[in-house]
């Protein structure tokens, strides 16, 4: 009974937050590139991740399914980092909704997959996300051309700078996971 109530409250909170991010504050998020790329997009990913953490803890996936889903998550991140996709999302509300749903689903799948997948692939995935974030950031700050027509070049560079910092932070997180994992492996030996 208590678990049911917790789940209901959790779902309600997630639904309200999704509604706030996707509809109520959508115009605010779409007004600048940092808000759109660094707040709205990761917010949906994180909401999806926590939903997975709450409801998909017991989901066991075979390795081939895990790898396939990680490829999907990675491709989703790459797709929504493309300047063309960013423009499409800001200009067309339906496309933006597609982005938000895609990010939520990607986050939702990431939790059970990372929990069950072998250590080496987990590290590889986290490392690739960190590198991708840094590479995108470098591309955004090094181009003196406007890449997204919905924003301006200052916002583009600002987004790039934050992405580099976030990527570096994520890289250190990956290192932490790596050494923690190595420590666990040694303690089993």
């Amino acid at each position: 009974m208590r678990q049911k109530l917790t789940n209901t409250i959790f779902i309600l909170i997630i639904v309200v937050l999704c509604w706030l991010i996707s509809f109520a504050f959508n115009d605010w998020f779409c007004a600048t590139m940092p808000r759109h790329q660094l707040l709205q997009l990761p917010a949906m990913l994180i909401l999806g991740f926590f939903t997975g953490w709450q409801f998909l803890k017991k989901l066991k996936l075979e390795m081939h399914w895990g790898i396939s889903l990680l490829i999907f998550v990675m491709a989703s991140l790459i797709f929504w980092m493309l300047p063309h996709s960013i423009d499409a999302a800001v200009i067309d509300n339906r496309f933006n909704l597609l982005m938000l749903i895609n990010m939520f689903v990607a986050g939702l799948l990431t939790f059970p997959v990372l929990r069950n997948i072998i250590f080496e692939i987990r590290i590889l995935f986290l490392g690739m996300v960190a590198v991708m974030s840094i590479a995108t950031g470098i591309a955004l700050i090094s181009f003196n051309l406007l890449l997204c027509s919905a924003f301006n070049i200052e916002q583009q560079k600002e987004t790039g700078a934050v992405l580099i910092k976030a990527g570096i932070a994520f890289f250190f997180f990956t290192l932490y996971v790596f050494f923690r994992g190595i420590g666990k492996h040694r303690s089993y030996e």
Partner: protein
Amino acid sequence: MIPIFSLLICTSVIWKWTYGFSAFTIFSYTLKSAGSTPRDFPEMKFISQDEKIFELKEKKKYVLVNFVYLNCPYVCHKVNNQIEEIYHLFDSTMVPSQLEFLTISFDLKNDDLVKIKRYRERFGTDINGWSFALPYQSDQKTFNRFLIQAGIWKYQIPANGVINHSVYLLLINPKNKIVKIFDPARENSQAITSQIKSCVKN
């Protein structure tokens, strides 16, 4: 097999979305969507600063076309300065007899003939063969369709009214076909001029 299948699907979607990993921005995507060169320059009537109504196909000569709007805070003026440089790299044997320059404003709301005439005067009084024009009797929807067909993307940011747009220069041949597209942000004036000269001579 499943991971490979997943990788193939994801790669195919991104491949399709970027025209084979060649168009990552909406500017290059719109240009690619319009088709490869040579292709027809879409039909549209224009009115020049001297109130002459014309279509590009009537000119029967090479025309270098670019798109601007007068309230542009930065890029349009920079591109027009580069076009001014290109214009002066040609002599009178080529301009205006074989080649003309045409700068089209796409701000139908704010730009008018008086404004474009005044703006043209900034580049000097002796710029025979370089016209500034507005679409003639065209509504925004028709003109937007024309731009997409030409391969030019424009988007007006609702919050501040700034129009972000493609800065490509289109070289139209006497048969009204787009034969070359230049990106002034990546190519310098000398390189553009020599390519135009070789097109006109051939």
